[in-house]
């Protein structure tokens, strides 16, 4: 069944210019060589097939390459020695021949369908009918478990959002500053324990310490430690205060 150069005009899948597949090409070669399809000269056909696909683009080459491999395998199997009158021997070409005949029948039906469509195209119905809109996608049939599993897979792909927790700073530096100012107004010198007092929490300690450092920086007071690990002595810086 030779296939003339039929260019695809309706936007269907890309076809090689002349053949709609490796089976079509094989049938074409078989007809061209006028060989018996049921007694394929596999070696000759395989060589020709390889030669033709050598010129083909790569668009659909996978299908053709698969057929080429199949032909070569059959060719190799045909070369294996076999005993005469061996009833067990199975013709390695049988499956290919079956497919070729099946495909040839489809081609015959294609010719019939094409003729029928051409005849129908010569009879017009009432009015112009717009081509049907795109059909809705094939119905999705899925049970609940599959759906849930699919949803889980999708959800798993969603990255964890980067959240930065903003924690309000509980330190009360202002309060500590007021307390230290009050102490400074009373006395020139006082100790760390006067500032924080007994039962101070870690927050009180941190607040007081930051307030002391802040005041030392401003020059309101000086911090001193007479010896290592001794209690801190806080002294008012009189001249600056006066200034």
């Amino acid at each position, binding site marked *: 069944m030779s*296939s003339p150069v*039929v260019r*695809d*005009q*309706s*936007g*269907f*899948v890309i*076809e090689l210019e002349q053949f*709609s*597949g*490796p*089976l*079509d090409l094989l049938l074409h070669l078989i007809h061209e060589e006028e060989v*018996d*399809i*049921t*007694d394929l000269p596999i070696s000759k056909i395989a060589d020709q097939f390889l030669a033709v696909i050598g010129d083909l683009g790569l668009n*659909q080459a996978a*299908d053709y390459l698969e*057929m080429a491999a199949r032909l070569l395998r059959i060719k190799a199997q045909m070369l294996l020695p076999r005993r005469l009158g061996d009833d067990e021997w199975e*013709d390695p*070409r*049988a499956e290919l*021949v*079956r*497919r070729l*005949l*099946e*495909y*040839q*029948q*489809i*081609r*015959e*039906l*294609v010719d*019939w*369908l*094409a003729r*029928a*469509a051409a*005849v*129908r*195209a*010569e*009879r*017009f*119905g*009432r*009015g*112009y*009918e717009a*081509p*049907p809109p*795109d*059909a809705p996608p*094939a*119905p999705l*049939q899925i049970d609940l478990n599959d759906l849930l599993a699919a949803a889980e897979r999708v959800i798993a792909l969603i990255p964890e959002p980067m959240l930065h927790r903003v924690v309000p700073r509980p330190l009360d530096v202002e309060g500590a500053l007021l307390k230290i100012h009050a102490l400074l107004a009373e006395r020139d010198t006082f100790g760390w324990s006067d500032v924080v007092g007994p039962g101070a929490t870690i927050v009180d300690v941190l607040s007081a310490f930051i307030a002391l450092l802040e005041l030392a920086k401003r020059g309101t007071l000086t911090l001193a430690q007479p010896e290592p690990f001794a209690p801190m002595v806080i002294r008012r810086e009189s001249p600056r205060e006066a200034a």
Partner: protein
Amino acid sequence: MSPLAKLLEAALFAASRPLTLEELGSLEPESGEAALRAALTELRAAYADDHGVELAEIAEGWQFLTRREYAEAIDRAQFALRPRRLSPAALETLAIIAYRQPVGRVEVDEIRGVDSGAVIDKLLERGLVEVVTRGEGLGRPLLYGTTPPFLEILGLKDLEELPRLEELSVALRPPTPAEEPE
């Protein structure tokens, strides 16, 4: 013509697609199927000669179509659009689906020897095939069948009008092809 035949004539004139027997029956529910069929026969006979259109039985329904001999003139004058022709790949796929329905993609691929997914999608889009059921086995594959529009573009009354496989010169699925040369 009988009143019922005239009613059918009017309805078929108004419709731009084949109307099924059931649809035509809804015009006058009290008249039975026998009367309906008789009226259709009468109508068809009335248009058998002396008319540029004829009543065609198509896609499991009836439709007025122009006679073939006027196709060229109408086409040349561009009064009507011819449908798009189907590509060889589309026809191959349609042939396989028509004869093997319900059939899955894998079987179509196998018979054609090429991947047919894109072609089947196009045919689905044009409404020429549809998913009819799902197969057993791995992945419960979608199985496709042909639709009334498929019959319509081929001008067929029903699937019975497709050629029988035995009538073809090549016999399909011979059990041992090598031993049965054509």
